[in-house]
C-alpha cells in the first residue's frame, strides 16, 4: 500500500540518526575496550586484550559485578513479591476504582528518581525520620546504623523505584486473561486458590518475566542509589565505570566493563524474550 518514497521517508531519517548516535558510539565503545591508556593520560590506540584480562585478574571487578547482580536479584524478587499481589488486586478486585488505583501506581514513576532516592536518605539516616521515630516511641535507644550507607539501603530504595515497573506489565497480562476462564475453572471444581495456580498465574507469566527483567536489568546498571545511599559496602558496578571515566581516568577499562554489561543485558533480554514467547498463548 505504501509507495517506496513514503517508506524511504519514514525509514531513512531515524535510521541515520540511530546509526550516528547509537551505532557509532557503541562501536567506539567496542574499540576503546581494546585500547589502553598511557601513563601520561592519553589514549593509546593499539589493540590489546589487556583490559579484559584485567577484569578477570583483579578481584574487585568480578566481586563488584556479582554483588551488583545479587542486589539486582533481591530487588527483582522483592519487586515481584510486592508488585504481583498489587497487580492482582487491581485487576480482579478493584472494580470501579481500578483506574484510580492504576494512576496511583503510575504517579510515583513520574516523580523524579533523584527526589525519591534523596527522600529515602532523609528517612533512613541516623538523624532521619525513621530513626528518630523509633527512638521517639522508645522502640530503640540508639539510631540503627545499618539503615543507611549499606546494601540494605540500596536494595530498599531500588525496590521502591522499580516496584511500579514490575506492577505494570503484570497488570497488563492479568487484564488480558478472559474472565470466563476463571469461571470455567470454578465450574470444573477448582477452588479460587487452585484456579490461581492452575490458570491465572501461568497465563500471567509473560508479564511477570517482563517485570522481572525490567527490575533486574535497571537495578544492575544503577549508579545513583549506591552513590547516595550505598556507602563503601554498597558500591555497584556502574559506580566503578563512572569513576573510570572520571577521576580514575581509564577509559579503555571502563569501556571494557561497559561492554561486558551491555552484553550481559542483551543476553538477559534475549533469554527473557524467548521465555516470554514460550509462555505466551495468544
Amino acid at each position, binding site marked *: 500500500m505504501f509507495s517506496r518514497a513514503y517508506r524511504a521517508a519514514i525509514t531513512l531519517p531515524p535510521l541515520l540518526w540511530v546509526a550516528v548516535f547509537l551505532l557509532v558510539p557503541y562501536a567506539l565503545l567496542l574499540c576503546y575496550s581494546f585500547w589502553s591508556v598511557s601513563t601520561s593520560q592519553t589514549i593509546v590506540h593499539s589493540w590489546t586484550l589487556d583490559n579484559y584480562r584485567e577484569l578477570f585478574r583483579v578481584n574487585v571487578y568480578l566481586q563488584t559485578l556479582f554483588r551488583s547482580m545479587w542486589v539486582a536479584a533481591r530487588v527483582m524478587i522483592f519487586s515481584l513479591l510486592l508488585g504481583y499481589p498489587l497487580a492482582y488486586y487491581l485487576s480482579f478486585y478493584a472494580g470501579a476504582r481500578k483506574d484510580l488505583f492504576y494512576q496511583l501506581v503510575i504517579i510515583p514513576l513520574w516523580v523524579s528518581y533523584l527526589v525519591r532516592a534523596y527522600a529515602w536518605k532523609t528517612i533512613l539516616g541516623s538523624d532521619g525520620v525513621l530513626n528518630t521515630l523509633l527512638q521517639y516511641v522508645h522502640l530503640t535507644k540508639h539510631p540503627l546504623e545499618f539503615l543507611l550507607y549499606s546494601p540494605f539501603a540500596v536494595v530498599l530504595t531500588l525496590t521502591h523505584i522499580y516496584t511500579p515497573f514490575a506492577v505494570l506489565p503484570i497488570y497488563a497480562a492479568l487484564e488480558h486473561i*478472559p474472565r*470466563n*476462564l476463571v*469461571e*470455567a*475453572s*470454578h*465450574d*470444573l*471444581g*477448582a*477452588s479460587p486458590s*487452585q484456579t490461581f495456580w*492452575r*490458570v491465572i498465574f*501461568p*497465563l500471567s507469566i509473560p508479564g511477570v518475566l517482563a517485570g522481572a527483567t525490567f527490575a533486574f536489568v535497571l537495578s544492575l546498571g544503577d549508579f545513583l542509589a549506591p552513590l547516595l545511599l550505598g556507602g563503601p559496602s554498597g558500591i555497584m558496578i556502574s559506580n566503578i565505570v563512572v569513576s573510570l571515566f572520571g577521576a580514575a581516568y581509564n577509559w579503555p577499562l571502563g569501556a571494557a566493563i561497559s561492554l561486558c554489561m551491555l552484553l550481559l543485558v542483551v543476553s538477559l533480554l534475549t533469554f527473557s524474550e524467548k521465555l516470554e514467547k514460550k*509462555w505466551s*498463548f*495468544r
Partner: protein
Amino acid sequence: MATISEPVIRSAKSGVRALLDIRNVAKSFGTNPVLRDISLQIAEGEFLTILGESGSGKTTLLRIIAGFESANSGEILMEGERLDLLPPYRRRVNTVFQHYALFPHLTVQENVGYGLRVAKLPKDEIATRVSEALAMVKMSAFANSKPGKISGGQQQRIALARALVNRPRLLLLDEPLSALDANLRRQMQVELKSLQREVGISFVFVTHDQEEAMVMSDRIALLRMGELEQVASPREIYSRPATAYTAQFIGHTNLLRGEIKAGVARCNSLSWRVGLPEGPALFSLRPENIRIVNSETGPDIDVVSFRGRIRHQAFHGATELLQVLCDDGLTLSVRAATRETRQGELHLEFSPADAVLVRESPERG
C-alpha cells in the same frame, strides 16, 4: 403455568423428586430487575431449553444455577439439597460456555482432564475417562493440540467433553452454537441432541433462537423480561401458545383482535362459534393454518371463509409466505406451497379450532 411434560410426569408418578427445583428466584442488578419470581423444575434426563430475547434474563438464570451469580431471593434445590448455598466449584453442575473458555495454555487433553485433576483422581482413571470423552465428541485425533490451533466447531466439542467428563448431574449450555455458521450449527444441534440421549444427563440449554429450541428440546421455558411466559413441550408451545408474545416469538402468527359475545367470536368481518366466556379476545392463527381454496365454499360452521388480494409474496423454498389484504382491511400472513404465480383475488378459509385464544402480554417495567 408450566405444562407438565413426559419426564416430569414419569418422575411425579414414581415419586422421585425433580432433579433441580428452582423456587421463586429473583435477581436485580442494582435497581434493574433481571429475574422476577422464577419457579421451574427440571427432571432427570430431560433436555430443557431456556428461550428468550437478549435482556430476558436467560443467561442470568443459567449463571445463577451454575453459581456465578447469586439470587437476591428464592432458593434452588438439587435432589432435595440447597444448591444455591454452594460455591460453583462444589456443585455437581458443569457449564459449556458461550465462547468455550478453553484454557489456552493447556492441550486439548489437559483441558478435558482439568476437572478430574483438580478432584485428584488417580492418573490412569483420568487418562481413561479423558480418552472416552474425546472419542464421544470425535476429537481423539486432537488430543495433543492446543486450543488456539483448532476451529470454533472443534473447540465447542472440546468444551463439551471437558464438561461431560466430570459426569455432572446437570449440564448447562450457554448459547454454545451461536458462534457457528448455519450448516455447522444444524449439524451440532442433531449431535447434541443424540449425545444427550446417549449420556442421559439433564441438559439446560440457553438460546435466543426459537427454531433451535424447537428442534432440540423436550421442553421449552420461554422467558420474557425476567418472567416465565410459558413452559411446555415444543409441540404444545407451538400449537397452544398461552400468550400473544409466545405466539409471535415462536414461529409466525397472525393476531386477531376481537370480541366474544353470546358464544360467537367476532374479529372484524370474521366470525365463528366458540365455547368461551364473553369479553374482548385475542386469537393466534398460524399462517399455515389458513388454506387457499378454489372457490368459495358454502356457509359451513366448521370453516371460516373470506376473500383477499395478495399484497406481497416471499419465497421460502418449499413454501412461500403471502401477505393478503382482506376485504375488511385486515392483513394476514398465509403460508402456502410454492406456486409460480398467484392471481389477484383468493378464497381463503381456516378452521375455528386453529384460532387459539391467547392472553395479552403485559408491559413490564
